[in-house]
């Protein structure tokens, strides 16, 4: 359950007041008629879908009804920041501290749930130990 800060209402509200609307910062092609099939398909359907930091569009549907952006971690679900339309995020995948923790499932240490088993072997749990045979 999220507790979301709406940058327009300037207060935290419950998740149920909001709707997620997918990836943020997608630019509609300036001249759709001039697009190749490839470019138009990419615009319509292809999304980043990262396992980690994600910039996404939300709408405060039963509040101020304004759209705004959230930067959120897609594994821990932690909301890192919210910002108004037209603004750029200050937190990105590149500048988030401790980003080694986001990549592999078995590199996830505490805090969030992992996908699949956490191997009993310590050597396998150690993300730096790539290529270890156990």
């Amino acid at each position: 359950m999220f507790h979301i800060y709406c940058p327009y209402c300037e207060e935290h509200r419950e998740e149920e007041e909001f709707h997620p609307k997918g990836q943020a910062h997608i630019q509609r092609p300036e001249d759709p008629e001039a697009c190749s099939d490839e470019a138009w398909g990419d615009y319509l359907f292809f999304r980043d879908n990262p396992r980690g930091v994600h910039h996404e569009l939300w709408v405060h549907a039963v509040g101020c009804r304004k759209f705004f952006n959230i930067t959120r971690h897609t594994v821990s679900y932690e909301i890192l920041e919210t910002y108004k339309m037209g603004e750029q995020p200050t937190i990105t995948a590149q500048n988030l501290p401790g980003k080694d923790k986001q990549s592999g499932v078995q590199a996830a240490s505490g805090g969030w749930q992992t996908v699949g088993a956490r191997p009993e072997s310590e050597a396998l749990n150690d993300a730096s130990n790539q290529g270890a045979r156990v």
Partner: protein
Amino acid sequence: MQRYSGFGLVKHALSHHENWQRQWRNPTPKKEYDVIIVGGGGHGLATAYYLAKEHGITNVAVIEKGWLGGGNTARNTTIVRSNYLWDEAAALYEHSMKLWEGLSQDLNYNVMFSQRGVLNLGHTLQDMRDIQRRVNANRLNGIDSEVLDAKGVQELVPIMDCSKNARYPVMGASWQPRAGVARHDAVAWGFARGADARGVDILQQTEVTGFKILDGRVVGVHTNRGDIGAKTVGCVAAGNSGVLAKMAGIKLPLESHPLQALVSEPLKPILDTVVMSNHVHGYISQSDKGDLVIGAGIDGYLGYGQRGSYSTVEHTLQAIVEMFPIFSRVRMNRQWGGIVDTCPDACPILSATSVKGLFFNCGWGTGGFKATPGSGHVFAASLAKGEMHPIAAPFSIDRFNTGALVDEHGAAGVAH
């Protein structure tokens, strides 16, 4: 492989069931395989099984970062049906349905496939028109399907509120008698045992960390247990497909969402079919153990955490109580989430990629379980021949650029 039979059960009873053979080995990875399957869920294991059984390719590894069938295979609501609208999708799911019907015998493993029928309810005039259209399309494709009116639904499910006083009165339903449910874990284990017996190496707790690509051709994978060579690699990783694709420099039109499900405390037999409603947004069946198995829609945001929001669970149960007021005081036992890889047209991706020898089988979204044997069967044929099987061909990644979508949102948009 030790075959299972009634006689075997009696024989092993004499030794207190302590000497059953392990169902599959736990091998050390070889340096090189003909085919590597990334992802040891139902679809991946089925692919390996059919590669070995139908195509004689046994130098195969299934690489799984967790444990077998620990992802969506173990997290779905086990509904199996094939009443899809479009010819392409109907062909794929009906192919699967036919395999389901002989699966327990084929695997020598009881997957508890129970053809108890599935109802897809209609609550509005438009629902009923869509149901008429879909049922007609199904029948033209040779799929058993009927339209029922509210009285017919009430006769099948006496405990459902089909009265006119309901907030969203039931006006009728589509009914597929051959549809039903199966035991999800048994499906993964049965395929794993069958594949292993034919020589497939199942490598659990082995995570793919990258692909070895040479001159535009895949030559192997990097894993946390060292590099493994392969001529062909098939990725069957559901929610994590996008992460794998990125490692190979491929884009996929997928979004990974949490999908939650829950089961109640066990009850005496009360519901002997599967009821799904797109309109009030929930679906329910009763397992052989007696618990009600309940699911609904995805959480709208992206999520890899295998959990979702409480409000989604609440909406799910509101829908169930709306249809079945009799369940209003049933207590829920467990709740969980999986990561579903949803596709813009609600159909899967079975496709070759721009990297030679690298194939993807993903995008099954919220409804992959029913397709497990069919998906494995056609994907294995595609990997064996190096080109897509005719049933799989319409589901290539290219369709998102050519526009030849197979838009199944009408039949599959919500409920699976």
